[in-house]
């Protein structure tokens, strides 16, 4: 195998695939990237057995062939090469190492045979559906913050992406929750999406796919099967296993009749929450919201550092009540609101019972996103 490629192109291709490779592996070949030189140019693939990313790029191929070499080392080398350098990769049967040359620099890297590189089977995937990249990015960004990190509830450690028909409209929906809050985002279902199975896309896959979308074209082609999901971004493609579990019935926990509506300036609200929470060093920064007609008072009380309070104008005209939240959850949700105003809908139940009911947070300009927050009791 022998090929020549411009440094920037190689760096970009390696950058696309190398982050899949885990830093430490028990199977040596998983630390390697598969380099395939063929008539269509250079293809790089990397895998962690759960996910595979393949990147195809143009290169001058002198001799086709395949070999694997350490992914992180190769990436670091190429990154440090001077800009504009021509890089040649060659592997001949004579020298059992991959030779990388650029100008007066050369290095020999250990290799492992390409035949041992685990390939991810692509069988059973559905017909490709073309999804607008912008819309898909929005679905991910609106929901990924709520993905659970607790491995014992593995079925919550991803984004549940599924098509559905609601009130006669065909929707593609993303939902994520960690059991304390939930984020939901909709988009009109692209042609051919309805009928495909819903999948729970693991956190790492979400992260990698989101990264590759930056370099993707107008649309991303998506294929799913009950076990796998595949994104095709043009030159790069990602195939991943999905989480084998049932996503809980999230519709049940989205409050329907929350009638106490509070509207406030989102930026001021977030800044106020952040300011009052500063005095709390704990992980669970508990913020108390005292809601009255026309205003909301935010309070954080800390035994050691005292009490912080800020009053905020708000649009509310019901009976006064108090409710507590984790400050970080409020800030996370507020960051998702694109509009000037944030809308919080509280349950109507009187007294302390409402303190335990889920709260709906809405973006007045974006009817296709909903957030649910559970209160905190101190």
């Amino acid at each position, binding site marked *: 195998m022998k090929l020549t490629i411009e440094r920037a192109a190689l760096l970009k291709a390696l950058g696309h695939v190398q982050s899949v490779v885990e830093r430490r592996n028990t199977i040596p070949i998983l630390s390697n990237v598969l380099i395939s030189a063929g008539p269509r140019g250079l293809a790089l693939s990397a895998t962690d057995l759960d996910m595979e990313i393949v990147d195809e790029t143009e290169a001058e191929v002198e001799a086709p062939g395949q070999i694997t070499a350490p992914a992180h080392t190769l990436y670091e080398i190429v990154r440090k090469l001077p800009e504009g350098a021509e890089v040649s990769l060659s592997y001949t049967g004579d020298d059992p190492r991959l030779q990388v040359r650029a100008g007066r620099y050369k290095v020999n890297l250990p290799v492992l045979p390409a035949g041992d590189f685990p390939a991810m089977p692509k069988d059973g995937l559905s017909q490709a559906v073309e999804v607008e990249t912008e819309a898909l990015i929005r679905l991910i960004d609106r929901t990924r913050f709520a993905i659970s*990190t*607790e491995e*014992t509830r593995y079925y919550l450690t991803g984004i549940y992406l599924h098509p559905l028909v609601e009130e006669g409209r065909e929707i593609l929906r993303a939902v994520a929750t960690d059991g*304390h809050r939930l984020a939901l985002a909709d988009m009109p279902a692209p042609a051919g999406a309805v009928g495909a199975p819903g999948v729970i896309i693991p956190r790492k896959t979400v992260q990698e796919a989101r990264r590759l979308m930056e370099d993707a074209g107008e649309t991303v082609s998506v294929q799913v099967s009950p076990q796998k999901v595949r994104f095709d971004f043009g030159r790069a493609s990602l195939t991943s296993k999905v989480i084998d579990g049932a996503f809980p019935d999230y519709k049940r926990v989205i409050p329907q009749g929350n009638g106490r509506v509070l509207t406030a300036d989102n930026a001021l609200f977030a800044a106020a929450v952040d300011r009052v929470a500063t005095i709390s060093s704990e992980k669970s920064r508990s913020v108390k919201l005292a809601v009255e007609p026309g205003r909301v008072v935010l309070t954080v009380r800390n*035994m050691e550092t005292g009490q912080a309070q800020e009053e905020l104008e708000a649009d509310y005209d019901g009976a006064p009540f108090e409710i507590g939240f984790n400050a970080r959850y409020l800030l996370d949700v507020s960051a998702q609101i694109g509009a000037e105003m944030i809308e919080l809908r509280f349950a109507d139940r009187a007294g302390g019972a409402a303190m335990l009911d889920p709260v709906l947070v809405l973006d007045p300009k974006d009817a296709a996103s909903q957030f649910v927050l*559970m209160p905190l*009791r101190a």
Partner: protein
Amino acid sequence: MPIRRLPPDLINRIAAGEVVERPASVVKELVENALDAGAGRIEVQTEGGGLARILVADDGGGMGPAELPVAVERHATSKLNPDADGGYDLLRIATLGFRGEALPSIGSVARLTLTSRARGATDAFGLTVDAGRLEGPFPSAFPGPHGARVEVRDLFYATPARLKFMKSARAEDMAIAETLRRQALASEGVAFSLDLDGRKALRLPAERVGPEGRRARIAALLGGDFADNAFGLDQTREGLSLTGYAALPTYNRGSAQHQYLFVNGRPVRDRLLGGALRAAYADVLARDRHPLAVLYLDLDPALVDVNVHPTKAEVRFRDPGLVRGLIIGALRHGLAAAGHRASSSVAGQALGRFRPGFEPGAHAAGASAWREGGWSPRAAAPVSPSLPGLSGVSARAEPWIGPPDAGVPDPQDPSVPPTQAGAEHPLGAARAQLHETYILAQTRDGLVIVDQHAAHERLVYETMKAQMAAGGVARQALLLPEVVELDPADAERVSGRAEELAALGLVLEAFGPGAVLVRETPALLGETDIAGLVRDIADDLTENDAPLALGERLAEVCSTMACHGSVRAGRRLQASEMDALLRTMEATPLSGQCNHGRPTYVELKLADIERLFGRR
């Protein structure tokens, strides 16, 4: 198959299976008999791990020829007396034994010889029981004015199967010694001696009955170290009285073997004790370290049922919660009061490490290392000459010549209040910081070395605990209440303690027969493995009757946060900062050790230092 009545000797052999498990249980039964007979001195000799021969001799009341054959009969005892109506009350048992099973059981599986002279009698009598066959009574020789000698030979020869299950003679010897030690801890007024294969294993003189004698007996059995590093307990609540000693957290062990509980003078192994000790020491000791404790619980015999176990190793309290609360309360109280007694053994060990007469080369290397460590030797100069004659003199009295940034007080700095190294400040005045890690303080009669990180971590942790206690544990409601499957008994136990758990931030309720539904979790734990937590709590409730796991997890988070939020080793402290740390430590209970039972400071008395230099 026809149903048969079993012959008495077979009944005894079956009973022996329960009562006489191994040689140590023979010793236990016979020593209990001796104590019940009012002995003042008990002598035990064994051979071959007790399988060849066990002799227990006492100077108790003894028995006459008429009583002897009855004594070896099953269900015959002098320890239960009928009341006026001829009824017996098993709920009020004040003696160690009462079942009347020991002697016949032993006699059914071994060759038993019993000789005795009753108090006031001139003649002594004896009898033998050989695998259940009684011979005697016949006149016999007896050394001493009154008492009884029981000799057991060839234990288990009549039950070869049991013999096969015996461990090595050494292991049996150790079990016998442990049995006797346990009983001796409870009966300080009785002299004990133990000879194993002719070797003197134990010689305990009779002590005066009372706390002093008890202390002497504990010191004799558990070592003087324990006595020096233990605090006394004495609490009474609702007719229960708890006395005894428990070790300072810094004096801990790797196993829970040295935890003794005596209920009305009876040594018992009760899981209640382990759980109570763990709960009481929870945040001063790492989970895998165990405190030493000798606790005596005295209560109305009617409040405890000792008739639940053939060898009476377990008891049942009518109100276990009260007993538990009493033990934990007394221990916590004692720990808080003793918070400032760093383990003397720690200081002792430290002293042992000092070696006079450095090699000149080593000394030079040491000196340069000190300077690199950021400690100015010049600044130390005024400290050393002032040491011997200094008693309660203000640290200010000495003119300081060290540079102000060398970790010693700057006299010109008005913001530093003068510190009196007097009795009101047990941790003294900070003199210097060594290696940017240890604070050296001078007290009225010695010096104190403080590990700044360990000490500050403990202080931060205590503050957080106080905050948690005052503000309550914040609870995060769950969007998706989690159903945790448990076995039905566990589920009931856990949901039965819902109120207690809610106070710690875990809100749950019963969910069908074999599950609980968790609605809220402690916010401090963040996103947590709820099922794992609930299962741990269920295990704790089964094992220790207290949901220790939850408190421990919260404490763990607090202690991690305390670790990150505290002054690290390597941070240079100003004199005023060091003094402030010392003053806060004095004001904070339980600041004598870190969260893992290691000391936060060591105190060296002037006398110890003088000894190092051969002045004493």
